[in-house]
């Protein structure tokens, strides 16, 4: 089912999403991947304040190519989410509501979705040029020294994603394959 959602995603909005829904997101989200997650976790373990507000946050696992003049961002498709599996359950427990990436997640992450009424979306891997057209603003929030891995805040309009893991315990990667297996 096609849906349009305005960010931020709250628990209420997440509860309405089912694995397989095709969703167009509009609003603000954070961008962070491997190295940025590692730094956030270090701050959490030291009990220090985070540079981003995790409450109802959507985090897009992505590291863009450099923007050409006059454009907000370069190519901007999702990276493999499993590399963030180690960190995701903790961030979800601290308020993060949605993750955008591609590829399988661990049971720990899927359980954290149910526990926190959160959602895991897949964006289309390798469609970085197309997805960049849905990003209208981009600014670096912190960790500029990480280059493509800096934490960014971006504004998106009708950014296409598919619900893979919902808060009802469904996993589209497991169910969809069975339909077409011969």
């Amino acid at each position, binding site marked *: 089912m096609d849906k349009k959602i305005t960010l931020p995603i709250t628990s209420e909005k997440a509860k309405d999403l089912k694995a*397989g829904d*095709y969703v167009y997101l509009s609003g603000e989200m954070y961008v962070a991947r491997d*190295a940025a997650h590692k730094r956030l976790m270090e701050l959490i373990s030291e009990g220090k304040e985070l540079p981003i507000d995790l409450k109802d946050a959507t985090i897009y696992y*992505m*590291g*863009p*190519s*450099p*923007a*050409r003049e006059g454009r907000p961002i*370069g*190519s*901007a*498709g999702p*990276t*493999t989410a*499993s590399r963030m599996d180690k960190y995701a359950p903790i961030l979800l427990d601290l308020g993060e509501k949605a993750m955008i990436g*591609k*590829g*399988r997640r661990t049971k720990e992450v899927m359980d954290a979705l149910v526990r926190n009424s959160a959602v895991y979306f*897949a964006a*289309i*891997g*390798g*469609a*970085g*040029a*197309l997805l*960049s*057209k849905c990003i209208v603003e981009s600014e670096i929030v912190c960790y500029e020294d*990480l*280059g*493509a891995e800096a934490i960014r805040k971006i504004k998106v309009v009708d950014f*296409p994603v*598919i619900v*893979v893991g919902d808060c009802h315990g469904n996993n*589209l*990667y497991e*169910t*969809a*394959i*069975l*339909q*077409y*297996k*011969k």
Partner: protein
Amino acid sequence: MIRSIDTKIITENIKEMCIEANHYLSSDMKAALDKACETEESELGKKILNQLEDNLEIADKEVIPICQDTGMAVVFIDVGQDVHFTGDNIEDAINEGVRQGYTEGYLRKSVVADPIVRVNTKDNTPAVIHYSIVPGDKVKITLAPKGFGSENMSRVFMLKPADGIDGVKNAILTAVSDAGPNACPPMVVGVGIGGTFEKCAKMSKEALTRPVNCHSKIEWVADLEQEMLEKINNSGIGPGGLGGSTTALAVNVNTYPTHIAGLPVAINICCHVNRHSVREI
């Protein structure tokens, strides 16, 4: 006759090839995607494939890299034995081309100088370079930027001779099934069979640079390529791993003699952005 080639020419070509490969796919890859759009059984799968085609068009028209992971630059360079390079040493010349291509072409710098310390080199160098000495006085360069979503899902299996062809098939299907949605399907599957541990891995990468509409000239290998493609597409993984009948666009297999005691098999998986640029100088 010895032919002199200034390595500045190599630098210039590598630079252009980095930019070209990251913005345009080869015609055989585009044709394979076109065909998949027609044959895909899943509605969602079809929608994703169409978006991948739109993505290629946007990349081309608006000069945006096809994928944000513009890869680590893998360079196969076949140097004619009658060639004499002048100027900077060839390795520096290649890396200078990568540096210029990735910097001037607005490509992502994804290389860290040390696998554990992990500080970005900020210019995507060094490249991974495979040299071959071949007959003649030409230099053939194949530049293949390799993204790591699919690279991470690649495997080497050191099988026993007794495992035979069934063991090889099982290895390929295991690697593809484990890769699933992580490797951005529809994928291209490069396979190396034989040689040694490193030789089969290198062959599997070279196999990815062969056009996807071109089978091996060895009959049993061509049969294996066909059978594996069919089995992979029956796995149900589909475009984006979200279910469907298009999981791979091609399976390319290269082989080499091996030792009486071994049967090495490498599977190098590439996403649908199977980039390479080839030039002869």
